[in-house]
């Protein structure tokens, strides 16, 4: 596998799974549903968010199916509204926000810093139950009539006029928000108090830094959307008049409060993905990461500046031209730390010994797609061009390049990279690479045409469109088909690997980091002895440490 790199560091004889590990520590339902082991909770999350991803994906299929024809004859406008709202709500609140933190973050942060668990294992389990309850409320709302407000719940439509099941969905999202808050709280406290001896702040893997920055956003942003969405529910149920202009309320205030969280929420999705990319790119370039502290601090800068740009979603909603100018300038500012990361990753590859394993294929995909997503974001942060592009398919394409092209590429890259650690088994490298290419091609084919459609003036959220847009829409739907097949393959070969995969060994990639110094899968208590850290992160110029557990 590692052709073109230094000799494989692990012993060449056949690997076996360790006798005892967290997966065989118990088989009854209680050992899973009442577990406080961060690794098992990560698996519980992995299963639940995968279910939500499939569901959200099915709604996306319906959207693309409807847009195959210009006259909207496949479904009524009302149905279409409910379909794209369901797609948005499920994907944003129940897949993207928990995706990397709740699965890979949960599994890896204690391992990476040499701890036995997160600081609050029971709160970690609680966060999963809170997530499931929130999802149940929201799904009930979606299946009992649906929701037609868009995932943004704009008032006064959502509070006064919408005939759909808004209150239930709002309560579901309110509840799910606390799952995110509890995860963030656990990560912050864990990073502060649970680091192994010698694991100083600037020896932490950049994955941990990225999650620390994410956790700050989760803690400071999520409660604001929670109270806002609660006010929407109160307004619907008890006719409080916060956002109803007929009773003196101000709908624009809702937009401010909503985006105060929902813009930083994008960074909740993308920062962990950037953390994954930092780990993978240094491993598959066989080179210490370039500009460690710049990457770490740019995560923090994104978390802080990300809180000051929310009103760029509202340039056409009505605000003073001076506020708009300031928010536009701050939006440009947030591009700087993002660019710092991309430059440092590229510099890491420079003169590195690059190999093309599946996880690295996703990294290449991430960098290209994130670059396009980020640069088109500047078009939208610019006051002049935003007026032309706002509420068109240009926006849809832009945020899918960040959320799918960025966040999901990083998520899949991370899943492939740590899969041998999580389940102790290898997957088919050939199928892995094929799927990565399919996803990249399918994704671009789906969303590049949407930039053009938006620029030509096709508005988002309509179920019908003028005939001259059909060619590009059909192209986009065809791309979505390829993308869907690309997502299907990993679910098949990874499921196969779980049962039949060849044992991977403790460190199949020859990677550095404490998580590779324990067995695959790790024992329930993570390490037999608390590790002592003596090196900077990513010491790819030194031989990897042997596993400290037998």
């Amino acid at each position, binding site marked *: 596998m590692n052709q073109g790199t230094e000799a494989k560091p692990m012993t060449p004889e056949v690997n076996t799974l360790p006798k005892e590990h967290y997966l065989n520590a118990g088989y009854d339902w209680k050992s899973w549903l009442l577990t406080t082991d961060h690794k098992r909770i990560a698996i519980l999350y992995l299963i639940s968010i995968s279910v939500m991803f499939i569901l959200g994906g099915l709604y996306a299929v319906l959207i693309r199916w409807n847009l195959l024809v210009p006259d909207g004859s496949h479904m009524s406008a009302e149905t279409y509204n409910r379909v794209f709202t369901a797609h948005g709500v499920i994907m944003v609140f129940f897949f993207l926000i928990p995706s990397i933190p709740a699965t890979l973050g949960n599994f890896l942060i204690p391992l990476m810093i040499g701890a036995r668990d997160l600081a609050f294992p029971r709160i970690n389990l609680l966060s999963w139950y809170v997530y499931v309850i929130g999802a149940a409320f929201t799904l009930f709302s979606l299946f009992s009539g649906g929701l037609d407000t868009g995932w943004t719940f704009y008032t006064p439509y959502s509070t006064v006029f919408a005939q759909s099941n808004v209150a239930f969905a709002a309560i579901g999202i309110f509840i799910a928000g606390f799952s995110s808050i509890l995860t963030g709280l656990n990560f912050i406290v864990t990073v502060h108090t649970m680091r192994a001896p010698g694991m100083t702040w600037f020896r932490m893997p950049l994955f941990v830094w990225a999650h620390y920055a994410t956790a700050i956003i989760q803690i*400071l942003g999520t*409660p604001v959307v929670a*109270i806002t969405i609660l006010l929407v529910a109160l307004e619907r149920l008890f006719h*409080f008049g916060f956002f109803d202009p007929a009773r*003196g309320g101000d709908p624009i205030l809702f937009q401010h409060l909503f985006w105060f969280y929902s813009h930083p929420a994008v960074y909740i999705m993308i920062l962990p993905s950037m953390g994954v990319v930092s780990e993978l790119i240094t491993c598959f370039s066989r080179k210490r990461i370039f500009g460690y502290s710049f990457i770490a601090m740019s995560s923090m800068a994104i978390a802080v500046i990300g809180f000051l740009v929310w009103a760029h979603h509202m340039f056409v909603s009505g605000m003073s031209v001076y506020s708009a100018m300031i928010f536009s300038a701050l939006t440009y500012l947030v591009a700087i730390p993002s660019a710092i990361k991309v430059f440092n990753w590229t510099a890491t590859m420079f003169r590195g010994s690059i190999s093309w394993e599946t996880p690295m294929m996703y990294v290449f995909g991430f960098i290209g797609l994130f670059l396009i997503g980020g640069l088109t974001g500047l078009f939208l942060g610019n006051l002049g061009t935003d007026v032309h592009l706002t509420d068109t398919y240009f926006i849809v394409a832009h945020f899918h390049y960040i959320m799918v092209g960025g966040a999901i590429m990083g998520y899949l890259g991370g899943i492939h990279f740590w899969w041998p650690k999580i389940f102790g088994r290898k997957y088919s490298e050939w199928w892995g690479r094929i799927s990565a290419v399919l996803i990249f091609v399918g994704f671009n084919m789906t969303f590049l045409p949407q930039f053009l459609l938006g620029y030509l003036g096709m508005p988002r959220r309509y179920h019908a469109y003028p005939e001259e847009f059909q060619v590009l829409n059909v192209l986009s739907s065809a791309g979505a088909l390829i993308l869907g097949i690309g997502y299907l393959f990993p679910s098949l070969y990874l499921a196969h690997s779980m049962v039949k995969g060849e044992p991977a060994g403790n460190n199949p990639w020859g990677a550095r980091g404490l998580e590779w110094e324990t067995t695959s899968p790790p024992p329930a208590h993570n390490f037999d002895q608390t590790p002592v850290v003596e090196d900077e992160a990513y010491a790819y110029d030194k031989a990897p440490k042997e596993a400290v557990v037998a």
Partner: protein
Amino acid sequence: MPEASAPPAQGPLAHHFANLKQQKHAAVLGMWVFIAQEVLFFGGLFATYAVYAMKYKEAFEAGSGHLNWKIGFFNTLVLIASSLTMAMGVHSAALGRSRRIVGWLLATVFLGTVFLGVKYFEYGEKIAPCFGMGAGPGCLVPGQLFDASVLHVAADVAPETQIFYSLYFAMTGLHALHMIVGIPIILWIAHAAWKGRYSPAWHTPVEIVGLYWHFVDIIWIFLFPLLYLMGRH
């Protein structure tokens, strides 16, 4: 987060911590992070209040003027007293006097209950007229039944007073909810203290429930002038 640091069966040290000092550090930091989250949670309401108080100054003064500041002031004193008893409880825990912890915590619960009792009558007075009960007109619950006649404001200002009462119920309601959550937790901690689970070396649950209670009090310290005193200057 008291449940995370509640002592397990074998002594207070949970399996994943190296020592009690680390466990205490984590629990206290956890509560501070939780409080930071709470500040932002209430912050959304305070921001909403600020926007509308500037926009509808006259309506807010009328709405606020109708609230009984004496009752509000009495409740403020009750809550400050409960903060004192809570602080004494934490102090007793540091000295390892379990019986005294129980006494001070029960005093805190008593004062908290008094506060909620007063709140019950305050709410009742505004809600009862909506159902045709109580003394005369003056339903102050926002919505169809809202009746601004008791506020003596001009007709064009009257609808805006609804926003004030929406905020009044949302803010004091959320605050009361935090007390309703806090009281059973304090009782639970008092029970553990009664069983002698805390010592000068390990009494972090008492400390962090104290932090939580003080935070809830501080929220009220802001709510009282914003809601009760706006109309009196």
